[in-house]
């Protein structure tokens, strides 16, 4: 399983763009990069996933360079409600049911 490293915490202000970078140096060919968000006393919520280059959906963008050894989650114009823990996970697409290995995540605090 590829190990991921991400900052323990980040602060931002409302309306700013937030970029959270994750490193995954030993990512394998079959691995996807997946990001989850977790609010206190709630389950992790899937945000976005990608394999290479750039992926964008209605809530975030994910940038993955050519070597895939890192990725950056970009949250445009954050609000107070985006305060949460953000997890970067590397998930293998080979095999059937795949366990997710969560790290400690990045605690994002959005300030007014």
């Amino acid at each position, binding site marked *: 399983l590829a190990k991921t490293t991400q900052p323990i915490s980040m602060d931002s202000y409302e309306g700013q763009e937030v970029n959270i970078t994750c490193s995954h140096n030993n990512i394998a060919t079959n691995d996807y990069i*997946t990001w989850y968000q977790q609010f206190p*006393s709630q389950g992790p919520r899937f945000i976005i*996933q990608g394999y290479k280059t750039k992926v964008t959906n209605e809530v975030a963008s994910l940038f993955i360079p050519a070597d895939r050894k890192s990725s950056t989650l970009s949250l445009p114009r954050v609000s107070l409600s985006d305060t949460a823990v953000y997890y970067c996970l590397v998930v293998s*697409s080979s095999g059937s049911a795949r366990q997710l290995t969560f790290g400690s995540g990045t605690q994002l605090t959005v300030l007014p």
Partner: protein
Amino acid sequence: EPEVTQTPSHQVTQMGQEVILRCVPISNHLYFYWYRQILGQKVEFLVSFYNNEISEKSEIFDDQFSVERPDGSNFTLKIRSTKLEDSAMYFCASSAPAGNSNQPQHFGDGTRLSIL
């Protein structure tokens, strides 16, 4: 948007008692999972389930734990004889068949299990 639902939201049980946590996965999903999160700690994988059998399990998932899909909609986690250290949030997740891409797991909001 379809959701994974878990009941009850909070379960309080005496040590040594059996407890069953219930989950209704998203209807067209075929892979089911249980995770737990002890207060202030990481989310930990317990078990995955596919085609009516366990696919993978972690070291945490010992003989005290079992899973079952008793009908076409529910997925349960049973702890036979609870211990104080079983106190945690338990999350159920489900995912669709992989096909040609990685299908993300979708989580419920958990059951808080408190062992007294």
